[in-house]
């Protein structure tokens, strides 16, 4: 049974954007604050710190999750992908390209969360229509109101994927 040491810290291991980190973390540190404040990975945003806006969405073992409600110690051993880890080197992820093309953001603050959430949505494979995209993206608020363009961008990538898949079959 693992537990916090006298100094309160817990040794954990996380793979973040394909890099392994061995860390001593206080148990009251959220995954969001760990990446932003301790690892200086500020692409993941804090929009409410209460699990209500989705700006902090990251992929944990491939699943989209609000990192503000995750105590980092509870994800010992997990693989985490943040917005900084989505592109393949200089090549942007298709969602990143589509977000630029469709002007799917204005201030850009919710954008990393929207994109990570959309990456999770694509992986889940449950959104097939525009209405489903809208429903399954509803955990990501955008105060600039870029929703129409975000749905366009995701629909675009979804269609590319379907046609690539059909071509492969």
């Amino acid at each position, binding site marked *: *049974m*693992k*537990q*916090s040491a006298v100094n*309160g810290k*817990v040794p954990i291991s996380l793979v973040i954007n394909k890099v392994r980190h061995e860390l001593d973390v206080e*148990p*009251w540190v*959220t995954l969001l604050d760990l990446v932003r404040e301790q690892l200086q990975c500020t692409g993941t945003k804090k929009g409410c*710190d*209460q*699990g209500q806006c*989705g700006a902090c*969405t990251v992929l944990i073992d491939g*699943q*989209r*999750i*609000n990192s503000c*409600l*995750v*105590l980092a*110690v*509870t994800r*010992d051993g997990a693989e985490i992908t943040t917005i900084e880890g989505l592109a393949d080197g200089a090549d942007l992820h298709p969602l990143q390209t589509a977000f630029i093309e469709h002007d799917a953001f204005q201030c850009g603050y919710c954008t990393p969360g929207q994109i990570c*959430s959309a990456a*999770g*949505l694509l992986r*889940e494979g*449950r959104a097939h229509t525009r209405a489903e995209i*809208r*429903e*399954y993206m*509803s*955990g*990501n608020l955008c105060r600039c109101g870029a929703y129409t363009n975000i749905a366009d961008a995701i629909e675009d990538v979804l269609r590319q994927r379907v046609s690539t898949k059909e071509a492969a079959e």
Partner: protein
Amino acid sequence: MNRFEYVRPDTVAHAVKALADRDARALAGGTNLVDLMKYEVTRPSRVVDINHLPLRQIEPAPDGGLTIGALVTNSELAWDPRITKRYPLLASAILAGASPQLRNAATTGGNLLQRTRCYYFYDPSTACNKREPGSGCSAIGGVNRIHAILGASDGCIAVHPSDMCVALAALEAVVNVEGKDGKRSIPFSAFHRLPGSEPQHDNTMLQGELITSITLPASDFGSNHTYLKVRDRLSYAFALVSVAAALKLEGGEIRTARVALGGVAHKPWRDPDAEQALSNSPGAP
């Protein structure tokens, strides 16, 4: 968030032992407990991380139903083929709640234990009998358009916020818990409670008990069901009111009806009068 001791047991027995402390809290997905800790509503002395317990299975139950491990996430449950086929009411209720991100983290056990969204409960500067027994209820006479219309007491008008539990109430699930005195099973209707004079207690679990699983009875309502939720925006909002309704039909007549309401009371509200009125009736208006 207060300073606390963190423990991560590997077995249910260890977890139960760690939870014996009065101010210990079990932490699974964290989607509610971490939030409550940030608001300083809950200040546990010890946090028992139960994520490493072997409670992630969905398995057939002996009587033909399904047993769902407490750590099965809301997403896993909603999209499991056995659920979508046999208990689609449950799937649609789960998907009506929260967001995909939250459902990916939130667990079955945690959903049962999520606490009210009463504004005052979340604001430690106000009086709240649920948060601080004996302090009073600020919601009575205050901002309370989202509060209870059934089963409230003089001391609390908070409502249970879960969508999933409304379906579980209609389906008559059973909650399996384990504590220092062993295992027991609690019928869903007896799991959550009305506030009465002790609104600090949301449910009938005993100090130190842990939810290990829930069991769905074999008798399903796969064909005729609906989960209807009314809320202030079209998604990602708590219910103003919701209804889980399930029917068994025979020859075009309603044989059995189950009706449960959400967002209206301190617990998912079964409505036996409505069920009786519908049962053995022709159904169509």
